[in-house]
């Protein structure tokens, strides 16, 4: 079976237009279909000229996974053809170029790198929520929509938690693109969603420094990343801020448990630099000593791979919980009840990240006076109070953040924050019911109605008693 593809040729109702490129394993053509105005591409695996089974297994994997995926962060699946007469996948064509085009300009200004990091992390979180690990995150597999969302393409190496992993069964060797592969992937572990965070860390490092953290290794050299840490980004680009180095080096940790627990948590840090807890990573200017490296090397020799993926489990252990804290005078009992509830959630969800949010209500029309009589900023006062509230929660600093939002509509501000930051669970206090509150509508009831996630409404013991009495 040998096919010569030409423009104008028809395959299953699709007409080939322009040959975009030929990659390692497939050709890409723009195609049209009668009556369908959407721009489409057809991906045709090159199965003909080689005895290598890899292209066909990657094609099968993509054919299994792509029809399952939805949302703005994946190309919309249109159709697939089996091997006979010709294998292909047709999908939505994402206009523009991949992030690979940006490699010509590296190093990029760090604010842009952080912004790219946020969009890709949001896309990865959405993919992980769909039970899929990409396992080949790299600039050429990321496109940016005109609306700004990152789109992850090429699912040939991906793994779906609920489908057979054809690649693992077929081959006994690691897969991926060697500069971007996570240490556990080198060990043939295809079960950890945090592998994608490592690859994103490699991308961000490359964009910010202009160099790949582990070079472009081949053969046995790929294993070096299990014990040899990269040169810290700030040693190469002093203008890279410490917080960004902290984030990048955390993504590049050898042990997945030392990385961010989820892509959503990574995005939250990239968007809130002032909330990033700086550790020794932020200040590092040279690589680790020989002794430390040697110890990692010893450890790496014993490392074993996981068997089955537990993407849903990893994501549910590490939710982002928004604590909507009301600090108004007289609300101490409610703030305490909220704190008890958060403590309870932390005891169950061991890797939860708590985002403490307080709303500083502003008026819609008038110019607000955001200072008190002594000229102290209300914003700063609120932040101090909020941190005092959170200080008694038993949680490491890097997993709690504090934000005071100035907004005329508290409910809308909370819902926006939750949506924008992939919040999994909002915990909010409610005052006791009264005729006036029923008439005006409470913030908590609006949050319950409009939030994109689960909401827990907390009442204070005092209010509960008076409601019963």
């Amino acid at each position: 079976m040998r096919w010569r593809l030409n423009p104008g040729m028809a395959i299953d109702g699709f007409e080939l237009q322009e040959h975009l490129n030929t990659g390692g394993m497939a050709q890409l053509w723009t195609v049209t279909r009668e009556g369908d105005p959407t721009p489409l591409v057809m991906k045709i695996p090159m199965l003909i000229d080689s005895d290598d089974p890899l292209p066909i297994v990657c094609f099968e994997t993509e054919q299994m996974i792509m029809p399952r995926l939805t949302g703005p962060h994946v190309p919309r699946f249109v159709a697939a053809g089996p091997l006979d007469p010709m294998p292909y996948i047709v999908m939505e064509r994402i206009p523009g170029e991949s992030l690979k085009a940006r490699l010509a300009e590296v190093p990029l200004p760090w604010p842009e790198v952080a912004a790219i990091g946020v969009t890709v992390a949001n896309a990865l979180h959405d993919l992980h929520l769909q039970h899929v690990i990409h396992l080949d995150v790299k600039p050429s597999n990321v496109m940016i929509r005109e609306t700004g969302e990152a789109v992850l393409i090429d699912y040939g190496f991906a793994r779906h938690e609920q489908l057979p992993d054809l690649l693992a069964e077929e081959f006994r060797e690691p897969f991926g693109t060697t500069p971007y592969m996570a240490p556990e992937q080198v060990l043939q572990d295809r079960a950890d969603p945090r592998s994608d965070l490592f690859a994103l860390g490699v991308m961000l490092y490359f964009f910010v420094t202009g160099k790949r953290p582990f070079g472009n290794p081949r053969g046995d050299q790929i294993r070096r990343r299990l014990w040899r840490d990269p040169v810290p980004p700030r040693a190469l680009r002093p203008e890279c801020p410490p917080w960004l180095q902290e984030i990048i080096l955390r993504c590049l940790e050898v042990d997945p448990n030392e990385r961010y627990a989820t892509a959503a948590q990574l995005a939250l840090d990239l968007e809130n630099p002032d909330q990033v807890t700086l550790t020794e990573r932020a200040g590092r200017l040279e690589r680790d000593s020989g002794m430390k490296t040697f110890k990692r090397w010893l450890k790496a020799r014993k490392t074993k791979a996981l068997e089955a993926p537990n993407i849903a489990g990893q994501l549910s252990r590490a939710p982002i919980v928004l604590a909507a804290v009301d600090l108004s005078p007289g609300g101490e009992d409610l703030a305490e009840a909220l704190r008890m509830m958060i403590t309870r959630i932390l005891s169950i969800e061991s890797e939860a990240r708590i985002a403490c949010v307080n709303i500083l209500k502003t008026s819609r029309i008038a110019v607000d006076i955001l200072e008190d009589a002594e000229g102290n900023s209300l914003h700063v006062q609120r932040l101090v109070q909020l941190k005092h509230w959170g200080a008694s929660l038993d949680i490491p600093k890097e997993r709690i953040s504090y934000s005071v939002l100035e907004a005329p509509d508290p409910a809308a501000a909370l819902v926006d924050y939750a949506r924008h930051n992939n919040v999994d669970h909002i915990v909010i206090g409610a005052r006791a019911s009264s005729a006036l509150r029923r008439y005006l509508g409470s913030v908590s009831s609006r949050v319950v109605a409009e939030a994109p996630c689960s909401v827990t409404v907390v009442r204070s013991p005092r209010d509960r008693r008076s409601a019963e009495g």
Partner: protein
Amino acid sequence: MLIAILTDIHGNREALSACLAHARLLGVDRFILLGDYVGYGADPAWVVDTVRGLVDRGAIALLGNHDEAIDGSDENMNSIAREAIRWTRRQLGPEQRRFLAELPLTHEEGNVLYVHANGYAPRNWDYMSGPMEAIRHFSRVDAHITFCGHVHVPMLYHMSTTAKVGSFSPVGDNDIPLLPTRAWLAVIGAVGQPRDGVAAANYAVFDTARQTLRYLRVPYDTATAARKVREAGLPEQLALRLEQGR
């Protein structure tokens, strides 16, 4: 077309009723049953009559080793299975026994094969209990997709174009595409006596148009089924198995 595939019912009325109701809710078009309607459970006569009713309305029912043992030899069975078969013989009338004796061993539709135990020697009742057995099956059977039961634990084996065999333990309520590029051996778990630690009944739905397979678990009234086993005087172990799913 949606085909519900049920196997290893083993006289369990509660489990079969729950699966049939579930399948009708899903809107399945046809039933194919892979055998072992009797043995172990307390309601063999009701199950055989129900299966006969399904066959009268177009269902396919195949022969299993316990069905064969009703009029045949029970020498190769373990003591508990043999005791259950001897009890079961007394529960069935001549019509029911004739129905079981006349069941076919296999059924083929295009390149899809349905069979109780294995595709290469249906009557020797070899179990498809691991990848090695699956390799033996794939090397001797040409069918693109084979459905079988007999093992009681759901599993999906597949073989690539380069003859590499993989196994997958199905999870969740989830359509698995049976790609045309490889061969598939789908072991369907038992309706009436699950053995993977989950007490809920197993069955599967094959969507012939989309070529996808969905493994399903249906909770049923195990307490009643186990109580009837005890009341019938069948071995206690058979009641425990239903309660524990192992």
